[in-house]
């Protein structure tokens, strides 16, 4: 095992891709000379050269589309969209082209394109730079949506993504880049569509993903002090979705809370919650709770921004109040 931060785990995954597959190249804004806006690709340009580490203009529709085109003709491109907020500029390329080409060509074409992007708020970057849209992409058939929460998962999931022939949104939470974790030294992969039990427990299941896993774990610790044993599930991927692990857990605990950073209306937590009650209604000992950010644009002021992001205390209060625990 080696301890590393999530940023380095992603960099390691990218270097592996570049080292082992010459069809792979990186493309994105400021990934070359600048070393990447979040410093993931620092030193890459020197090591791999301009052909494989391509700085692009500020034109997401163009370089995401170019990535999809390259993938169609047999390359394995990895495109970095600086933040998921800017992916909206390229959403037509992602949803209408990359996600559809395999279907519309009756499988003659495939688009093995990995779109790496940065998601989440909490960094005082204000309304247009603090959003999370992985739930939007998870609703689009034909896309895979991968949302790692630990360095180990980031590396293991990325390795699997490289072998997948579908377009993938690989969303890295900006506040997780500096999170440390043990990463196995030997080669391993983590399958897509297999959730992780981040912490076992008996009384309540907290379902989360990406940046919210840490918050859920913190809540579980606080609940533990109250004598309530919480099981934390990290979904790892929203598409494909591992509902089985969630349902199995709820059958054990009889209670479920789904925590998600983005807005409640249309949030992916709604999909999880409705699935739980459809599949495991007779197992429930209380309502399936959804904890999402309120339906407002992210504020800039730190205190207000913090207030709208689901927190451990928020989870603890919801659990104790709604379940009478």
């Amino acid at each position, binding site marked *: 095992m080696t301890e590393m931060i999530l940023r380095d785990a992603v960099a390691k995954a990218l270097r592996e891709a570049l080292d082992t597959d010459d069809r792979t190249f990186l493309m994105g804004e400021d990934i070359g000379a600048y070393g990447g806006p979040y410093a993931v690709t620092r030193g890459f340009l020197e090591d791999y050269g301009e052909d494989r580490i391509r700085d692009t203009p500020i034109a997401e529709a163009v370089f995401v589309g170019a990535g999809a085109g390259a993938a169609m003709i047999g390359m394995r491109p990895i495109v970095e969209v600086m933040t998921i907020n800017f992916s909206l500029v390229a959403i037509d390329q992602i949803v209408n082209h990359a996600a559809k080409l395999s279907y519309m060509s009756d499988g003659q074409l495939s688009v093995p394109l990995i779109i790496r992007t940065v998601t989440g708020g909490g960094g005082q970057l204000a309304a247009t730079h603090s959003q999370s849209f992985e739930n939007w992409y998870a609703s689009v058939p034909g896309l895979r949506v991968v949302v790692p929460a630990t360095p180990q998962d980031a590396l293991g999931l990325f390795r699997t993504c490289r072998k997948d022939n579908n377009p993938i949104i690989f969303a890295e939470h900006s506040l997780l880049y500096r999170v440390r974790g043990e990463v196995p030294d030997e080669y391993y992969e983590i399958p897509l569509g297999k959730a992780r039990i981040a912490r076992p427990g008996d009384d309540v299941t907290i379902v989360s993903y990406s940046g919210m896993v840490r918050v859920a774990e913190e809540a579980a610790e606080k609940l533990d002090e109250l004598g309530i044993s919480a099981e934390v599930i990290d979904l790892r991927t929203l598409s494909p979705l591992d509902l089985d692990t969630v349902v199995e857990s709820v059958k054990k605990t009889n209670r479920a809370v789904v925590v998600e950073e983005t807005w409640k209306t249309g949030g992916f937590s709604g999909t999880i919650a409705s699935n739980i009650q459809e599949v495991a209604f*007779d*197992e*429930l*000992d*209380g309502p399936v709770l959804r904890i999402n950010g309120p339906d407002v644009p992210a504020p800039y002021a730190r205190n207000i921004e913090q207030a709208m992001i689901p927190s451990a205390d928020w989870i603890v209060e919801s659990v104790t109040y709604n379940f009478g625990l």
Partner: protein
Amino acid sequence: MATELKMPQMGYDMEEGTVVRWLKEEGSTVGRNEPVAEIETDKAVVEFESEAEGVLLRIVASEGSIVPVGETIALVGLEGEEADNVPSAGSTESTDSDTAIREELTSESERHEVQEPIRNTTQESSESTPTTRILATPVARRIADELGIDLKQVAGSGPGGRITKKDVETFDPASSTSTKETNFEMSSSETPEQSPEEIPETVSETTDPSVNSMPGEKEPLSRMRQQIARVTVKSKTEKPHFYVSAEIDMTKAMVLRKQVNDQLSDDGVRITVNDLIVKACIESLKKYPKFNAYFQDDGIQFNNTINIAVAIAGEEGLIVPAILDCGSKTLRELSQMVKDLANRSASGTLNNQEYTGGTFAISNLGMFDVTGFLAIIHPPQSAVLAVGTVAEKPVVRDGELAVANIMNATISADHRIVDGVEGAEFIVEVKRLLENPMGLIV
């Protein structure tokens, strides 16, 4: 305008029923009083008849769903309403072509009329929910069902008093029952004509702490068992029972019955002792209609028809269906009706009215060698006649010993409606009729 078919009240304490099976599909034609579904109550599965004629526009309660009494389970209306109704209730969006079709079929105002009941239903149900529903989580309901626990007895510890899994799992029926028994003792001590020998049985079973016996296996209560428990406890706590017994000489009746059966055997007629008792009760009830009445807080509710309920032991327990409006039936007709009732009770095809409509009951254990017994009144009825077996006994006639066919009969009656003298008059009238059986035949 569509008619809402609602979950019927089948049994006076029924709160909800399960839609077991739809016998008609959406869109099929239904006649008035035609069975459209099978409804399961605590007691049995009964056919549910449409009260309206037309087309089954929409099935609101799917198979297997449990619906509170009075809530809509289906809509029946005119053929033209169909296209209009289904999309409006089934989904919130409609395509342009849907809209076009709807415009063709009905005018704006008509459409409102059709959609109205559906909205009302939702409102009604949400309004009525808090008063009738027990707050319990799904898993608590499931476990309570499995363990045969009546959720009404369970105190909820969850938010708003909601019953949780833990509440059900830690529920101790003994403690709850003993509370009830205290109430029972109090109420019965105020009742002058209680039957004290009946009380200790339940008390000793659950509250005797001196016996430290090892508990055996626990058998979960079937729905019917729960229902019987509920009804009998309710009856014995609310209705001050009193009992009047008589020995009835059935010698003449047995002879007459044999003659009739011998003569009419070719017609397939076979009059039973029970048929004679039914007939005797009907005639007595005409004379003493209070025994055919219901006690209500604001008065005695007389019934214009006589519906004789007959206790029938089924596989799972006791049911007490009634032969309806039998006041003017001949003995032969009654015999046929009782037979038919028993057959249909065995096949589970009794209708709602038969289940709930009894105005007076007869409980006959004559097939066993028992002298007699006391029956519990089946609410909302006010009296029940319990009869034992007909056996040869020595009797004294004109100072001489003789052998007679003797049957013991006991009337249990609700003291709120009738007093001991009336009970005596009633049982003596039954006795007189049975001892002079020609009157029952002619």
